[in-house]
């Protein structure tokens, strides 16, 4: 084993103490394992001394799941290989990945069909050669930040815009290899380990049997990334997807690829009022199922982007948005023929007119270049907001952006927007709202100017969590709970359910070494009690 595997937390590694949530943590050591064997080695070393391990991938998370509180940081970014592929009887293709590969790397390789196949087994190579002859494939989960790693995406059950049509990453994970907190390993293939009611058994490759008692609550049927997924007679693989790095370390992932639809067009529509845009969304949802994503950006978000764009550089390449536009909806259509797409365009035109929008002021991206520009536009908005907060942080270092990640059932879309707007107006806090409106999943980003507003923002956030939980909503729909939202887990499921989750974790990880602080609160001194 490489002597340099576990390193002291030197100055040069400080960036590994934080993630996109901008929370900064502490750690004493860090490692960059390159294979499962090294992961096992590190886990065993740490567990002997009861040192907590925080897992990291691309550190793009917004819930501080990758921020260490103390102990060891295990960063998987150097495990970024595609280790094999297979084709099943139905002709579908599956890729086996190390957890550190980023979404953008994966996409590029799938698009180019360029995999480093030299070490692959004969059967995998055969599947690859067949894959090369096939038309285009794609991997559907598409969180906005494409430098997320696959391991991180599985850990928080990542979604993205296209999950409106295709669902979250859960539906595309067909196998996981895991390293448990005691150093044992296990491979779970979808469909092979099924719970009986709420009980299940899992045998590790080292021959240890784990008897699992699953929590009793009902997992919501809407888009969700809050707490463990449980259901009667569930597939045990689903327990680990969205577990925020608290149950096991993911060392290998198998994902399913989809055939790329022949025609993919993206259309951005602009409106002068939020209500018009929302009506448009509801109409589209009612009228067609050919839509892969419906995204929303409010007037504040557009304005922040306009300002950053004027400052030049990165965002200068974006098309101008007319100043009277106060809301934007992005619709992506996935269809078989151009004719079908034209028909849909006609439908959109009708609905825009009905919602009092302006059909001349729309952007239709039919070619890759234009689609990339629209994707960049979508990405630019959260980036601009981060820049704004970074500027404010210079005056007031304690503040951070407060971004919500809650979703509600379809019939509560108007209600939830109303709840947000009323509160924001009453408290006078600046915000920017965007997100996956198709799934009634909006990110409300509170932009505090000072410490007082920051505290106020936290209060508002908690109030929203409680109101939304009451109508069957979820406190985290895609970012995961991490270290920032554990108290909302209780708001959503109740304290008994959270206790059951914690008991489940302890079956896998009795010393609470993995992902300490994620999902469950953890205060110093707690470990001595155990």
């Amino acid at each position: 084993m490489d002597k340099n595997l576990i390193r002291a937390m030197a100055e040069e590694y400080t960036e590994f103490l934080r993630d996109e949530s901008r929370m900064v943590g502490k750690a004493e050591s860090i490692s960059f394992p390159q294979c499962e064997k090294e992961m096992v080695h590190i886990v065993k070393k740490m567990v002997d001394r009861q040192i907590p391990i925080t897992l990291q991938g691309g550190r793009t998370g917004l819930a501080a799941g990758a921020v260490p509180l103390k102990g060891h940081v295990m960063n998987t970014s150097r495990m970024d290989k595609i280790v094999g592929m297979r084709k099943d009887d139905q002709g579908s293709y599956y890729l086996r990945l190390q957890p550190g590969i980023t979404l953008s790397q994966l996409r590029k390789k799938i698009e180019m069909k360029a995999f480093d196949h030299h070490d692959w087994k004969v059967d995998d190579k055969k599947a690859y050669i067949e894959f090369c002859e096939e038309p285009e494939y794609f991997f559907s989960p598409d969180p906005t930040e494409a430098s997320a790693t696959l391991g991180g995406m599985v850990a928080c059950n990542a979604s993205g815009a296209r999950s409106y049509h295709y669902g979250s990453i859960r539906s595309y994970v067909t196998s996981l290899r895991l390293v448990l907190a005691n150093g044992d390993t296990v491979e779970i293939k979808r469909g092979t380990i099924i719970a009986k009611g709420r009980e299940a058994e899992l045998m590790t490759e080292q021959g240890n049997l784990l008897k699992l008692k699953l929590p009793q609550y009902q997992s919501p049927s809407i888009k969700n990334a809050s707490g463990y997924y449980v259901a009667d007679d569930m597939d045990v693989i689903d327990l680990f997807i969205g577990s925020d790095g608290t149950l096991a370390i993911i060392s290998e992932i198998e994902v399913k690829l989809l055939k790329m639809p022949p025609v993919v067009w993206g259309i951005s529509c602009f409106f002068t009022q939020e209500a018009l845009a929302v009506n448009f969304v509801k109409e589209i949802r009612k009228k067609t199922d050919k839509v892969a994503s419906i995204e929303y950006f409010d007037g504040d978000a557009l304005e922040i982007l306009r300002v950053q764009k004027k400052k030049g550089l990165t965002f200068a390449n974006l098309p101008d948005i007319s100043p009277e536009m106060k809301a934007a909806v992005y619709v992506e259509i996935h269809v078989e023929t151009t004719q079908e797409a034209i028909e849909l365009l006609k439908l959109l035109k009708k609905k825009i007119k009905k919602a009092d929008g302006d059909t001349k002021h729309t952007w239709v991206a039919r070619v890759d270049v234009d689609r990339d520009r629209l994707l960049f536009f979508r990405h630019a908005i959260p980036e601009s907001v981060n820049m704004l907060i970074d500027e404010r942080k210079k005056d007031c270092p304690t503040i951070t952006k407060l971004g919500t990640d809650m979703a509600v059932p379809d019939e509560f879309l108007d209600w939830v927007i109303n709840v947000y707007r009323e509160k924001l107006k009453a408290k006078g806090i600046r915000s920017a709202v965007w997100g996956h409106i198709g799934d009634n999943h909006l990110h409300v980003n509170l932009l505090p100017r000072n410490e007082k507003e920051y505290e106020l923002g936290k209060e508002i956030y908690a109030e929203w969590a409680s109101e939304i939980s009451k109508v069957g909503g979820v406190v985290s729909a895609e970012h995961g709970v991490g270290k920032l939202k554990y108290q909302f887990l209780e708001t959503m499921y109740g304290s008994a359910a959270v206790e059951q989750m914690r008991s489940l974790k302890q079956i896998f990880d009795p010393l609470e070494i993995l992902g300490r602080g994620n999902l469950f609160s953890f205060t110093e001194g707690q470990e001595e009690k155990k």
Partner: protein
Amino acid sequence: MAGLKIDYSTCDACGNCINTCPVKALYKRGNKVALEENNCILCGGCIDSCPYEAISINKKRTKTINREKTSGIWVYAEHKKGVMHPVVYELLGKGRELADKSKHKLTAVLIDGESSHLAKELIAYGADRVILCSHVLLESQQDEYHFDAMTTILEEEIPSIFLFGATSFGRSLAPRMAARLQTGLTADCTRLEVDDVSGNLYQTRPAFGGNLMATILCPDQRPQMATVRSGIMHAKEPDYYREGMIKRVNYKGKIKPNIEIINEIIGEKKESIGDASVIISAGRGIGSQKNMKLVRKLADVLGGQVGVSRPLVDIGWSEYPHQIGQTGAVVRPQLMITCGISGAIQHLAGIADAKTIIAINTDPEAPIFSVANYKIIDDCIEVLKMLIDSMEKKQS
């Protein structure tokens, strides 16, 4: 009729050519590869993709011009206000080599505002002969007059090979010339070789953004024209005792120009980091903000720009316009020296198109090394200091 031919005696119907075809002109019919002639653009991609050499292109050619009449290898001597463009000496270096191999004479064409002292210089760098065309109208780099003068010269004789620098002037003049002479031109050649029997010039150039190299011939027309970028070929040591002849061509300057140069602004071009051809970049590993000075110094010495990884902007050691990576600038320099950058995924996304990367870092496993061409496992500050020292010595 020109056309694509598939030799079915060697074709294995593997389908490589079908995948390669950009216009869907090839398809599988039964267990055979078939050609839809109406779609084929004869790009030749399939020919290279075929492992069995079963595909070929049939070509019926236009009649050849008389090769005996051509007068060797010519180089266009671009200059400005009496200063020769360095690419000219490089072309003469290459031209000399080609001329020696094919036993031809090397000629430099000098179009100038006055009978110039530059002719001697051209001979020193390898020309056997200089064609000198002087006229007061030719003083400025006014394309039209130069083009007209060139036409006058070419009315008397035509070279076998004609080389231009791929400068903005050359890239404007050479294609216009090629169209006038109805001959072939190959842009941005990186390798030139001559077949001494046929006199054919094998011109190799990058295509598809450098991802593919293509070797191009112009077998039936003369001159064979090519442009070469500065810095690709090597100049010979000048020899001021070399002798050569000078041929003067009269220019009448009778054309009425369509284009008028109102103003010329030189040296004002502002390079943003995205366009920089040299970037020295710094990351957390430089240790202290004061070391940014060293990074800037090296960038200045090499005429480049300073780039940084995101953590340096976050902690205020540098400004956002310098940030490279997914959320900063995407760069594509010829040369990049990274100092103390470990190479977070987001950073690597911004430097994927850099040509040559020299990475300096203390951690032998830093991911930056996986994309670098050269790696130095050491303290970047020590290396920087030493490097700046020796660069400055060289300059003085």
